[in-house]
C-alpha cells in the first residue's frame, strides 16, 4: 500500500487479562466471602451450621454472582442493539413483561412447576422486548432520552395490567413477593435453574463481536456483511432468557443493567469482548454490596436488595445524565 512501512503497533483491542482485572476479581471474591459469612444464623456455633451453610449461604452467593452478571450483561447487549445508553431490561419494560408472563402462568396453572413459570416469563419478556424494538425502528429516535421514557411508559402500562390481573384474581400479594427483588428465597432446591443464565453469559461472550458491530448501526453492520435482523433476534432472545429467569428466581433488579455498562464504558471504552469480564465483575460486585447492606442494615431482618439497588441506581443514573449533558 503506502511506501512507509507501518511500525508494529499495539493491537486495538484491550487485553483480556490484566493486573487490574485480577485485582477486581480479588475484591469481588472478598465480597462474596463476606456474603457467605453474613447472616443471623450462627453457622459455626450451631450443630447444623454446615448444613445451613450449604442450604442458604452458598446458593445465595451463587445467586448473587449469576443474577448480577446476567442483568449487567443484558443491559449491555440491549444498549448496543438500541444504540442508546439509557436502556436496560427495567427501563424498557422487559422486566414487567416477564412479570406479566409469570402472573399469567400462575393464574392459569397455579400448580405449575417453576420451569413452566420461567418459560412463561421468558416468552413474555421476548415478546415485550420485540414490541419495544419494533416500535423503536418505526420512530427512529435512537439518540434521545425519549427511548427510555417510552420504555418506562410501556413498562408502566404492562405493570398496571399485571396489577389489575392480580387484583382480579387475588394474587396481589404473590405478585408483590415475586417482584421485590430479593435473594432471601434463593435456597438449595429452588435456585438451580438460575444456572441457565450462565449459558446466556457464555453465548454473549461467543457473539460479542457481532453485538459490537450491531452497535454501530444497521447500515455499518450490513456493509461488513452482518445479518442485522438475526443479531437483534439473537440478542433479544438472550436478554429475554436472562431477564425471565432472574425475575422468576430473584425478582426485579432495577438499574443494574444501566449503571454497570455505563461505568465500564466511561473507563474502558466499548470494546465488548474485553469489557465483558469487567461488566460481569462490576455487576456481581454492586449486587453483592447492595445485598450485604440489605442483610445487615436492619438485622435480624432483611431489606429487599431491589430497594437498595433502586436508591443506588437512581443516584448513579442521575449523575450519568448530568455528566452526559455537560459533555454533550
Amino acid at each position, binding site marked *: 500500500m503506502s511506501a*512507509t512501512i507501518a511500525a508494529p503497533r499495539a*493491537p*486495538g483491542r484491550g487485553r483480556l487479562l490484566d493486573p487490574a482485572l485480577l485485582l477486581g476479581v480479588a475484591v469481588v471474591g472478598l465480597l462474596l466471602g463476606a456474603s457467605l459469612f453474613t447472616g443471623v444464623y450462627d453457622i459455626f456455633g450451631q450443630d447444623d451450621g454446615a448444613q445451613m451453610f450449604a442450604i442458604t449461604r452458598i446458593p445465595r452467593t451463587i445467586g448473587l454472582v449469576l443474577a448480577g452478571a446476567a442483568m449487567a450483561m443484558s443491559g449491555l447487549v440491549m444498549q448496543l442493539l438500541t444504540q442508546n445508553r439509557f436502556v436496560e431490561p427495567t427501563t424498557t419494560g422487559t422486566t414487567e413483561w416477564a412479570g406479566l408472563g409469570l402472573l399469567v402462568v400462575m393464574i392459569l396453572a397455579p400448580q405449575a412447576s417453576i420451569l413452566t413459570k420461567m418459560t412463561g416469563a421468558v416468552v413474555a419478556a421476548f415478546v415485550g422486548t420485540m414490541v419495544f424494538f419494533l416500535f423503536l425502528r418505526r420512530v427512529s429516535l435512537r439518540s434521545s432520552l425519549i427511548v427510555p421514557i417510552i420504555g418506562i411508559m410501556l413498562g408502566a402500562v404492562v405493570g398496571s395490567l399485571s396489577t389489575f390481573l392480580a387484583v382480579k384474581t387475588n394474587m396481589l400479594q404473590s405478585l408483590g413477593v415475586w417482584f421485590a427483588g430479593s435473594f432471601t428465597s434463593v435456597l438449595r432446591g429452588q435456585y438451580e435453574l438460575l444456572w441457565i443464565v450462565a449459558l446466556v453469559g457464555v453465548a454473549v461472550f461467543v457473539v460479542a*463481536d457481532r453485538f459490537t458491530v450491531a452497535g454501530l448501526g444497521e447500515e455499518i453492520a450490513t*456493509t461488513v456483511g452482518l445479518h442485522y435482523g438475526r443479531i437483534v433476534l439473537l440478542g433479544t432472545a438472550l436478554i429475554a432468557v436472562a431477564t425471565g429467569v432472574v425475575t422468576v428466581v430473584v425478582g426485579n433488579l432495577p438499574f443494574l443493567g444501566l449503571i454497570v455498562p455505563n461505568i465500564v464504558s466511561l473507563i474502558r471504552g466499548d*470494546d465488548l*469482548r474485553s469489557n465483558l469480564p469487567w461488566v460481569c465483575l462490576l455487576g456481581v460486585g454492586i449486587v453483592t454490596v447492595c445485598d450485604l447492606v440489605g442483610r445487615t442494615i436492619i438485622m435480624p431482618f432483611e431489606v429487599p436488595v431491589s430497594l437498595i439497588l433502586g436508591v443506588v441506581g437512581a443516584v448513579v443514573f442521575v449523575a450519568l445524565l448530568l455528566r452526559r449533558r455537560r459533555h454533550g
Partner: protein
Amino acid sequence: MITLRTVSKQYSSEVRIGPVDLEIPAGGVTALVGPNGAGKSTLLTMIGRLLGLDEGTIEVAGMDVSTTRSKDLAKVLSILRQENHVVTRLTVRQLVGFGRFPHSQGRLTAADEERISEAIDFLHLGELEGRYLDELSGGQRQRAYVAMVLAQDTEYVLLDEPLNNLDMKHSVHMMRHLRRAAEELGRTIVIVLHDINFAGRYADRICAVQGGRVLEHGPSAQIMTSEVLTRVFDTPVQVIDGPDGPLAVYY
C-alpha cells in the same frame, strides 16, 4: 463493473427512482451528481444493498446484490452512508478494525492488524488511532470512517457525500485520499457529491441524476459543459476554463 438494469423504486411519495439502466466500469472515481431529491443517495444505497429494489436487478462484479449473501458481498463491496450516528465508545483503531470483520469475523489476525495500520496511515490517522471517536472533530471522524471502509479491502467502495460537514481544506484532502485510493490501491470508487466542481476536478466519470433517472453519464470533460449542467441542475450554469480544468459558475 456495476450494472443496473431497469431498476426502479418508489422511495417516498415525492421521490421515485427509475427505471434506471447504468453501467459503471471498474476502476477510477465515478461521481453521482444532481439536484436535491434527484435520487443520487437512494441509487447508491440500493447498489450497496442497504435498500431493496422494487424492480430490476443490480449486479456488482457479477453478483446480484439482492440475492447474494451479505457476507460474500462484504468482501467485494463496502458502503459508507452520510450519517453515522455511533454511540459506542470506540477508538479510531477499533473502528477501523471492524472493517476487517468480513475477513476475520472479529478475531483479528496479524495480517488484519497490518491492514488496519495501512488504512490508518493511508488517511494520516496514525497519531489519532488511540483516541475515542467522540473526542475527534467532524473531519477526523469522517476520515476514520473512510479508513474503515478502505480496511475492508473491497474492490468497490461507495461513499455517500463524504464531504458533508467538511471545510475546504478537509474536503480537498478527502478527495485527494480517495483519488489515491483509486490510483494506488486500484479501488473502484462511486461517490455522491454535492459540489459539481469537486466532481469535475477529481472524478474520472460523472453520472448526472435528475428526477430519479440518469440524465447523462460519461467522462467528466463531457459532462462539465454549460449546456449539460444547465439541463441537469435546472438553473443557468456557465462552465469556464479554470486553472485546473473546467469550472462551473452558477452564482
